[in-house]
């Protein structure tokens, strides 16, 4: 027994457990998100889907008519799989950062869940499962649209839907970490301005980053969206090269490494 803490600053030490749990309790957290989302799904889909779709139409078919083909496909066909990846990133990031902030700081949703027999690990598991669902939904919807526009060149494109599991994890985790750190909602925009927007611009969605200076190229290689774009494009255009396996492995490593970090920050916020 320790009664020795008197006056000593006790640094936060999380209770045992540092990996999200994907148990039945996590599925209940997922269910809560689903019920809430079903009330607003039209707005939600329109907002998360509208922007990349307009980018595709304006850039792909508008600007695209002035751009010579890239890597032997039309500009629209080149950017479509990249925009698909960005839809997943944006949808997941915005939802997780803003709804996570509200649940943590304003509405006490996680607080109320924690008064039931649910631990932080299961809450994190449930939120991750939910963002994976969103990511698959957005990715698949966008895939359908570019199929209808005739921009798909390979049946391998069907694998894009399961691929969306990875951006679901990879973009949900940092967004929720940022939400635990923010004190006011506006601070979330730092994350979008400093991380999400640069990734959107410089991950090979609109132009091949291979032509950039080596420093920029190497930096970009470490960002996750770049690899999601490469995989998405490879599958949609049917161009499977060995280095896509490297991208896949890199994304898996990033996804797995982020999860304990997220659990740590959630515990720090919710249990200290």
């Amino acid at each position, binding site marked *: *027994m*320790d*009664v*020795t*803490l*008197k*006056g*000593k*600053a*006790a640094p936060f030490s999380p*209770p045992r457990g540092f990996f999200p749990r994907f148990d*039945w*309790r996590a599925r*209940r957290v997922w*269910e*809560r998100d689903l*019920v*809430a989302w079903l*009330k607003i799904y039209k707005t939600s889909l329109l907002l998360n889907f509208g922007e990349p779709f307009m980018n595709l139409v304006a850039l792909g078919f508008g600007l695209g008519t002035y751009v010579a083909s890239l890597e032997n496909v039309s500009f629209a066909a080149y950017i479509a799989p990249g925009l698909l990846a960005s839809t997943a990133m944006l949808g997941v990031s915005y939802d997780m950062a803003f709804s996570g902030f509200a649940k943590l700081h304003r*509405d*006490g*949703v996680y*607080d*109320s*869940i*924690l*008064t*039931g*027999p*649910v*631990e932080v690990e299961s809450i994190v598991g449930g939120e991750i499962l939910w963002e994976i669902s969103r990511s698959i939904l957005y990715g698949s919807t966008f895939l359908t649209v570019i199929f209808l526009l005739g921009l798909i060149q390979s049946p391998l494109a069907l694998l894009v839907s399961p691929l969306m599991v990875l951006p679901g994890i990879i973009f949900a985790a940092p967004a929720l970490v940022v939400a635990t750190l923010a004190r006011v909602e506006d601070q979330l925009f730092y994350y979008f301005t400093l991380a999400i927007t640069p990734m959107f611009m410089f991950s090979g969605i609109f132009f091949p980053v291979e032509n950039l200076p080596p420093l920029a190229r190497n930096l970009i290689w470490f960002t996750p969206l770049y690899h999601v774009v490469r995989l998405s494009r490879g599958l949609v255009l049917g161009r499977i090269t060995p280095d896509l396996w490297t991208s896949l492995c890199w994304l898996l490593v990033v996804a797995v490494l982020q999860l304990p970090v997220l659990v740590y920050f959630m515990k720090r916020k919710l*249990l*200290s």
Partner: protein
Amino acid sequence: MQPSVSSDNIVVVKRMFLLERGNRFLETNAVIEARQLQKTYGQALAVKGIDFSVQRGECFGFLGPNGAGKTSTMKMIYGRTSISGGELYVLGFDAKRQMSQIKGRVGVVPQENNLDPELTVLENLILYGRYFGMIRQEAGERARARLDFLGLEDKAGALPHELSGGMKRRLIIARALLNDPEILILDEPTTGLDPRARHVVWQKLAELREAGSTLILTTHYMEEAARLCDRLVVMDHGQILARGEPTGLVEEVAGPYVLEINSSLLNGDHLVPDGLVRRRETVGGRTFLFNHDNGTLLDRFEGLKLRAGQYLARPTNLEDVFLILTGRSLEE
């Protein structure tokens, strides 16, 4: 459906035997036992080593002002915050290691109304029930029964922000009762409610108490504590200052009567008759003369020609206990 608690001793004892190894066996009927319980936040000591035990079927109160350490104590009991020192057993489970087991067996009314704003009243309850592993139908039935019990059956489809303060509070109580808890923990159940809404909540808590539920509540309203609690502790600055039954505590600490009188009227001690006053406290320009006979004492002040408002002769209450123990008033 009666959201009550079994008070059958045999069941209790049997259950205690069935608990996992490593649990302490409780020989008594205590559902909560705390020894030298401590909570620190960084440098600050919120709870400074308190001892208490709560018996099955009683209503146990923590009375004290804001910052007394009541909420920290509650949060340790329902496994929402870690224990910094000492020991705490809830329903025979070690609160340091077995939070999950405890959380499934207690109901919690937290200080803030943390209702899910995106879900309707009924959905708030059903989805909460789902966290306890209830199937959808069972959660729905229980949710409707709790809404009936708390008089919210007409509000099933409303969103939380459409409810009044009192209704929100009742909904939180409904939610806390959803899992048929063995202990219901209420952190300031009526703070911020108007008198009418407060009485409705008191009525419901009294019904639960009658039905044999174990209730633990914190409050800074002495009326609430006096009305609902079988036993209580008075807390301030993280420590327990006194404990007992409300009436016994008042009798013991404050005596039967008090005469409040504006301090400015008492020019010097010579005006206060010695033999009659057992204790004297002064707070905010008001002097409290604790005594056995307000009538006789008032007669001695005849010369002051007291007007209404300058004095108040009344029986003592828990507020006076707090005043005597801390030298300040409870509600500030």
